């Protein structure tokens, strides 16, 4: 055990520390050394869960590094992004929704739908330059409809997005009941190309796109009134209204953003699989929700960071990687681990928020 606490830990800790403290927010805690500050960080509903996640990620990565040969490499770390680029984009959209206290169950089905649309339109010879915008517009419109149902008709987000999920999944089957493979040269090119980072490391274009989305989301959430209103709704919709914030518009827009992100994630997923299949990405909404929760966003809304969700995705990814290295290709352990992590973080959230109140 003591070995685990040696050099690698201290090397990586500051990295994660920077990652957890997004710009534009209070400087409390981040970068301070005293024990008291560390305790305050851990017990704050804002920074507590995400700090735990950061430590957890580092711990798993370090344990993996000691257990398996070749685990502790830059490429293994980069592959977490390569393999989960689409999930990062999904988690970004989901973060917006959950920050307002809502939830979006439709994202998995929308990923599948956008894959189906892409595959079928490309098959008939449409250009990717047209197909991708069409997908993004369609999924955003679907998000808009969900948002209107939630806000105007006061349908619970869970039910409204459930309807969207049924609709998207059903439309998949309407398009085709079997897998359609993609042979479009642009898509193939995007799927196979790697961007070298030197020293034998490389990433895919999808990673770049995902990181751009993350950067945009960070800016929107922390630098714009819209973003702060998202937090305000989660902190107290009534208070937000009384403060004169554009609550209605914002509440609808978060579902549009989630729809857009799902569409984009679908496109990235197609880059990864090079096919459209109606049964694909079943249960992905749970992965996205789990990533967001593990990343420190409170399910009741109001607290959380996009970068935390990215960290959540990385935790899920590193668990998957460990299991791959372990050699038991048992995907069930992933589910059990995710469930256990969900439980831990939900109870952690409960404790932290109860203590504050």
């Amino acid at each position: 055990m003591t070995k685990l606490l040696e050099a690698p830990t201290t090397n990586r800790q500051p990295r994660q520390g920077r990652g957890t403290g997004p710009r534009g927010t209070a400087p409390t805690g981040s970068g301070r050394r005293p024990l008291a500050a560390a305790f305050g960080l851990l017990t704050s509903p804002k920074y507590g869960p995400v700090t735990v996640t950061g430590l957890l990620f580092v711990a798993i990565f370090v344990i993996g590094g000691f257990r398996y040969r070749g685990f502790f490499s830059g490429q293994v770390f980069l592959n977490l992004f390569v393999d989960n680029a689409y999930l990062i984009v999904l988690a970004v959209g989901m973060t917006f929704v959950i920050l307002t206290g809502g939830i979006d169950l439709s994202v998995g089905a929308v990923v599948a739908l956008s894959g189906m649309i892409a595959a079928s339109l490309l098959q008939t010879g449409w250009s990717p330059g047209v197909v991708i915008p069409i997908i993004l517009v369609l999924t955003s419109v679907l998000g808009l409809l969900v948002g209107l149902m939630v806000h105007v008709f006061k349908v619970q987000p869970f039910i409204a997005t459930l309807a969207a999920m049924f609709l998207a999944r059903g439309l998949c089957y309407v398009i085709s009941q079997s897998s359609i493979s993609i042979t479009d040269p642009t898509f193939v090119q995007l799927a196979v190309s790697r961007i070298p980072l030197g020293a034998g490391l490389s990433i895919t274009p999808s990673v770049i796109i995902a990181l751009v989305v993350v950067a945009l989301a960070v800016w929107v959430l922390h630098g714009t009134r819209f973003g702060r209103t998202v937090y305000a709704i989660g902190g107290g919709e009534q208070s937000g209204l009384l403060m004169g914030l554009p609550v209605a518009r914002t509440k609808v827009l978060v579902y549009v953003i989630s729809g857009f992100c799902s569409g984009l994630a679908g496109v990235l997923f197609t880059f990864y699989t090079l096919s459209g299949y109606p049964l694909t990405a079943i249960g992905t909404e749970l992965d996205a929700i789990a990533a967001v929760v593990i990343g420190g966003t409170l399910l009741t809304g109001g607290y959380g960071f996009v970068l935390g969700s990215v960290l959540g995705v990385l935790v899920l990814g590193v668990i998957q990687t460990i299991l791959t290295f372990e050699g038991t290709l048992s995907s069930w352990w992933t589910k059990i681990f995710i469930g256990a992590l969900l439980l831990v973080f939900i109870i952690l959230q409960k404790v932290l928020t109860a203590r504050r109140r």
Partner: protein
Amino acid sequence: MSALAKMASNRLFWPVVMLLVLFAINLVAFPGFFEITVRDGQLFGSLIDILRNGAPTLIIAVGMTLVIATRGIDLSVGAVAAISGAVACSIILGSPAPGSLATVAVAITVALLISLVLGVWNGFLVAALGIQPIIATLILMTAGRGVAMLITEGQILTVNSPPFKFLGSGFWFGIPVAVIIAAVVFGLAALITRRTALGMFIESVGINPEASRQAGVRARGLLFAVYTFCALCAAIAGLILTANTAAADANNTGLFIELDAILAVVIGGTSLAGGRYSLLGTLVGALVIQTLVTTVYTVGIPPIATMVFKAAVVTIVCLLQSPTTAEALSGFRRRLAVRSGKGVAAS
């Protein structure tokens, strides 16, 4: 006219209308829809198929109705169904005599007992820790499939056990066993909640938790009870589903059944906001869903596209139940009520 209005204000009115419309569509597309024939002393026909295929959904929906009445929800029923199927199949497979009645009895008992544990777990998270139901049950929904796969070791467990298969595809007195089980569960739930004070307490806690607390109703025990019952229902449904195909598939047994069950409850007129529930409404709701599936099939649409129609039904029902839609109506109704209330007070 007023008789019609009275009928329309009954909460069962719209679900029943929906069901009748579906029947009518079926009748047009397939004139023999209502025919029930007796072959080898067993009943056959479209209606029997609807009942039999709808049985698992109905069973889960019964448990879900009670959970929803307490302002809760249980997303984990699909996973629980998968676990119970996996447990039963692995016990049967592991026994030297897979075809013996005793083995099947043990398998079923163990599967049901495990579901009780899972139900208590959900109840614990909701009632003792005070976690929102949707989130609390999300945990088991995620991890449950993994547990089921752990039990089946990622395989699809195929069993060759006539007594077990009987559960899913057998007939008893000419009636499919699944339908009989569903009827028993439904009847028991109705009996227990309506013949004891349980139903009243469930509704009272769902309508006004604080008033119920002040009246001395113990919500905690009640929540434990409904979540445990719901898990039990899920396990029974899981056993039927597994027996029907004689195979436990941890990934696909009961996939999306939580959504169908919730849908059945909502169509049946029980509000997701909790309170008054109607088991009869849930029955009609479950039938509507199953008939919808059958209709899609008989009309010749790819059966798999059923989900689009389900989406349409969810949307319509939600918009009908929406306070925004209801405001105009209830405003009118309230004005009437106030007027009559004043009249009485004055007299």
